[in-house]
C-alpha cells in the first residue's frame, strides 16, 4: 500500500518508550472525571456530592447541547466535586463500591445494525455517552449530532511520545473494532482508517475498510495533518475523527449495551517506574498509574497525554476523557553553568548546533525551557518544522497585530496544534498557545 510520507515534522528520540508488554493494573478505589480538560464543553452537573451512581449514570451534560452527556466511569458514591476559579469543574471523584452497579442501555443487536436508521443510531450513541468520542476538525470540539460530516477519520496509532500502540490495543479485540467500524459506516459514507506505525496490524482490520497509511516523523498520527495531506477541497475541512481505541469502545457498547470503562493506557518517559502498556479503566487516578513514583526519586513532571500536547497533572488527579497516556519526564528545574557554549553531546535538538546531531541513542528529556524568552528574530525554524506548511512566525505576527483574516488565509485553521513550533523556537515563544487561543476565539465568534 502506498503510504503518505511526512518529511516535515520532527521525531524526538526520548528515552523511556513503552514496550508492547501489557499488564493489568489493580482495581482503583476511586475513579474521577476531569471536565475542565475537555475543550469547549460547558458542563452542567447532574449529580451532587453524596449521590449514588452506577457505571453509565450521567455525571454532567453539555449546556450547548443537552443531549450530549458524559457518563460515570464507575459505580459507587460521588465523594467530592472539586471546583476551581469561576466555578470551573476540576474533578468529579467517585469512590467505587465492591460490586459496582451498571446501567443497561437499549441498543440494537448486531443484526439490527444494518437496518437501523442513522438518526436512531445517533440517539443510541448519545444516550450511551459514546457521542463525545467523536470530534470535529479543525477546532477539535465535540461532533455535532445534527450534521453529517464529509468523512470520519479513525486515528489508528499515535506517534507522539508516547501513546498506546494499536498492536497492543487491537489484540484479540479485532471483532469489536470491526463492529465499531460498522457503526461509523452508518454515520458517514466515507470512513477512513488512518494508520501510523506498524504495518503488521493491517491484517487485523476489517476487509472492506478504507485504510490510508502514514509514515514519517511526528506528527504523522495527527488527524489535522492527515486531513491536510489527503484533502482535495475545502468541503472536506470539517471532517470528524475518533481514536482507534474508542472505536473498540463503540463496538463494546453495541455488543453489551453498557458503557465501556476498560482502557489500555501507556506509562512512559525517561522517569517512568515501569514503562509499558497497562490494562486499566477510564478515569484511573494518576497516583495508581505511576505507583512507585518517578524512577530514582527525582522531581518529575506527570504529563497526561503526549509530551507535546498533553497537560501537567498533579498526582491526586485522574486521567482525562481523551488521554490514554501518562508520561513522566524530568522536571529540569536546575541551572547549568555556561550552558550556551557546551558541546551538548546529550542535548536533543532539531538544529545541528549541538554535537548531539551525531548521537543515535534516545535522549533523557527534561521539561527545562533551555533558554530565556526573546523576541522573534525570523530565523524560520518554525516554518521548516511545521507539518501543515503554516508560516508560524508570520502567522503569529498577524495574530499579534489582530489581523485575523490574514492569519486565516495563512492557514491558521489547518494548525494541527502539534506543538512542534513551540518545541523548536530558539526564542522560546509559545507559538502553539498563540494559535490555540486564536482558533478558540475565532470558533467562539462564529458559533
Amino acid at each position, binding site marked *: 500500500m502506498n503510504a503518505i510520507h511526512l518529511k516535515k515534522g520532527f521525531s524526538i528520540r526520548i528515552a523511556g518508550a513503552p514496550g508492547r508488554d501489557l499488564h493489568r493494573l489493580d482495581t482503583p478505589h476511586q475513579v474521577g472525571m476531569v471536565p475542565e480538560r475537555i475543550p469547549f464543553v460547558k458542563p452542567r452537573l447532574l449529580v451532587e456530592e453524596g449521590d449514588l451512581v452506577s457505571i453509565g449514570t450521567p455525571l454532567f451534560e453539555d449546556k450547548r447541547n443537552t443531549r450530549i452527556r458524559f457518563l460515570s466511569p464507575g459505580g459507587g458514591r460521588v465523594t467530592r466535586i472539586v471546583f476551581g476559579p469561576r466555578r470551573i469543574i476540576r474533578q468529579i471523584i467517585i469512590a467505587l463500591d465492591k460490586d459496582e452497579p451498571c446501567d443497561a442501555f437499549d441498543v440494537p443487536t448486531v443484526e439490527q445494525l444494518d437496518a437501523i436508521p442513522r438518526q436512531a443510531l445517533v440517539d443510541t450513541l448519545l444516550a450511551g455517552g459514546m457521542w463525545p468520542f467523536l470530534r470535529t476538525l479543525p477546532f477539535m470540539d465535540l461532533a455535532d449530532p445534527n450534521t453529517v460530516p464529509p468523512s470520519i477519520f479513525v486515528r489508528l496509532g499515535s506517534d507522539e511520545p508516547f501513546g498506546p500502540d494499536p498492536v497492543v490495543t487491537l489484540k484479540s479485540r479485532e471483532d469489536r473494532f470491526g463492529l465499531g467500524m460498522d457503526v461509523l459506516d452508518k454515520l458517514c459514507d466515507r470512513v477512513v482508517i488512518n494508520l501510523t506505525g506498524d504495518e503488521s496490524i493491517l491484517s487485523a482490520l476489517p476487509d472492506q475498510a478504507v485504510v490510508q497509511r502514514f509514515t514519517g516523523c511526528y506528527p504523522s498520527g495527527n488527524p489535522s495533518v492527515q486531513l491536510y495531506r489527503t484533502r482535495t477541497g475545502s468541503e472536506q475541512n470539517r471532517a470528524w475523527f475518533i481514536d482507534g481505541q474508542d472505536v473498540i469502545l463503540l463496538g463494546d457498547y453495541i455488543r453489551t449495551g453498557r458503557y465501556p470503562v476498560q482502557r489500555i493506557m501507556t506509562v512512559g518517559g525517561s522517569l517512568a517506574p515501569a514503562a509499558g502498556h497497562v490494562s486499566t479503566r477510564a478515569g484511573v487516578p494518576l497516583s495508581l498509574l505511576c505507583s512507585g513514583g518517578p524512577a530514582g526519586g527525582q522531581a518529575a513532571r506527570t504529563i497526561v497525554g503526549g509530551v507535546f500536547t498533553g497537560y501537567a497533572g498533579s498526582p491526586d488527579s485522574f486521567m482525562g476523557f481523551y488521554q490514554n497516556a501518562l508520561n513522566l519526564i524530568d522536571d529540569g528545574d536546575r541551572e547549568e553553568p555556561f550552558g550556551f557554549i557546551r558541546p551538548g553531546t546529550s542535548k536533543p535538538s532539531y538544529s545541528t*548546533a*549541538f554535537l548531539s546531531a551525531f548521537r543515535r541513542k534516545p535522549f533523557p528529556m527534561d521539561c527545562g525551557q533551555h533558554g530565556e524568552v526573546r523576541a522573534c528574530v525570523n530565523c524560520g525554524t518554525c516554518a521548516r518544522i511545521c507539518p501543515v506548511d503554516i508560516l508560524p512566525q508570520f502567522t503569529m505576527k498577524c495574530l499579534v497585530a489582530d489581523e485575523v483574516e490574514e492569519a486565516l488565509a495563512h492557514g491558521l485553521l489547518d494548525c494541527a496544534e502539534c*506543538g512542534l513550533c513551540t518545541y523548536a523556537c530558539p526564542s522560546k515563544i509559545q507559538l502553539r498557545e498563540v494559535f490555540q487561543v486564536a482558533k478558540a476565539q475565532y470558533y467562539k465568534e462564529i458559533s
Partner: protein
Amino acid sequence: MMKALKRLFNTTRPHFENGGRLEKLHPLFDAIETVAFAPALTTRSDAHVRDSLDLKRFMTFVIIALMPPFFFGIYNTGYQSHLASGLNLGFVPVIMQGARVVLPMLMVSYAVGLFWEVLFASIRKHNISEGFLVTGLLFPMTLPPTTPLWQVAVGISFGVVIGKEIFGGTGRNILNPALTARAFIFFAYPANMSGDRVWTLVEQSGQQAVDAVTAATPLALLPLATAGESASRILGEAGYTFQRLFIGNIPGSVCETSALMCLLGAVFLVLTGVGNYRIMIGGIVGVLAVAYPGYLIYLSSGGQTATMFSVHPVWHLVMGSFAFGIVYMATDPVSGPGMELSRWIYGFAIGALTVMIRVFNPAYPEGVMLAILFMNLFAPLMDHFVIKARLRKRVPNV
C-alpha cells in the same frame, strides 16, 4: 570555582532586584548571570519539552564564526602597520600592534553599545538580547584601522539607537544595525573612511616618509583604469594578485580583507544551521551573473569599451568586503527576508547590486554595504509577494 561564582551572583542579586539600589540595572545583571548559568526555567505548559537551542547559543555561534576573520584581522592590521612603518615583522610584535589597534575599537564599541542596550532594556523592562554582542563585534571589524575611537562611539550609538532601538529593539529593526552604523560613519566622516591613507596605521617613529607607504585598495584603483587598460594589469602592478586578495594580507578595514577567513566562518555557519546558505550562494551567483556578461562584452570589444568590466568576475568575490558582507551581514535573519525563495532572490540582488555599484559608480569604491542596506529595505516586500504566491496554492480553510 563554579560555586564561588554562584555565591557571588547570589550575594549581589538583592541589589538588582525590586527595591534594591541598582534595581534599574537588572537587565545587565540578568545578562551577565545567564551567560554564566543557564537559568533554571521550566516550561509553563505545552509543549512540555523544548529544544536545547536558544538565542544565546544562536548568537554565540555567529561570534564563533567571526573569530577567524577577527584574529586574522588583528594580525593583518599589525602586519600592514609595521610593514608601512618599517618596523619588526615578527609574529609577536605584529600581533601586539594589531591588538593595540583593534581591541580599543572593540572595547569602545561594546561599552558604548552596551550603554544604550542597558538604557533601553531598563526603560522597556525587558532582557538584553544577545544580538547586540554580534552587532558590537561586527561594527569595529568593518572600520579602517585609523578610525578615531570617538567615531567608533558615535557610529555604534547611531547603529544601536537609530538602527535598532527606535524600531522597538531586537527583531523589529528593518536595517542591519552594524551596517547602519558603518554607513553613518561612511557618510558623516568621509575623510576618515575613504581615500588612500586610512587603510594602514603608520607609526611615526623612525625616518619613514608617511606618504610613500600608503597604498590604494584594489577597489580604489579600478576606476583609475583608462580605456584600453586592463584592470588586472593595474592591480598586478600594485602588487594585488588573486591569491593575495583571497588570503587577505592587504591593507583594508581591520577584519574584512580575507575571503579565506570568511569562507571558514561561512562553513561553520552553514554546518550549524545558524547562517542561511541560500543568501550566501545567491550572493555569489548574483555577482557572477552581472560581472560575467560585462566581462564578455569587454573582451569581445577588444578592451575598447566597458572598461569598468575589465576585472575578471571571480575577482569581485575576493575584492573589498563582499565576502565579509555576504557571509556575516546579509545573513542577519532579522533584517533579511524570512522565506526561503526570497532569501535566494535577496542574496542574488545583493551580489548583483554590489557589482553594479562597483563598476558604475566609482564614487563609492565599496558597493556591498549599500547593496545590503538597500536590499534590507526590500526584504519585507519580497516576503510579501512570496507569501502571497504560496497562499494561493493552499486549500482554503475558514
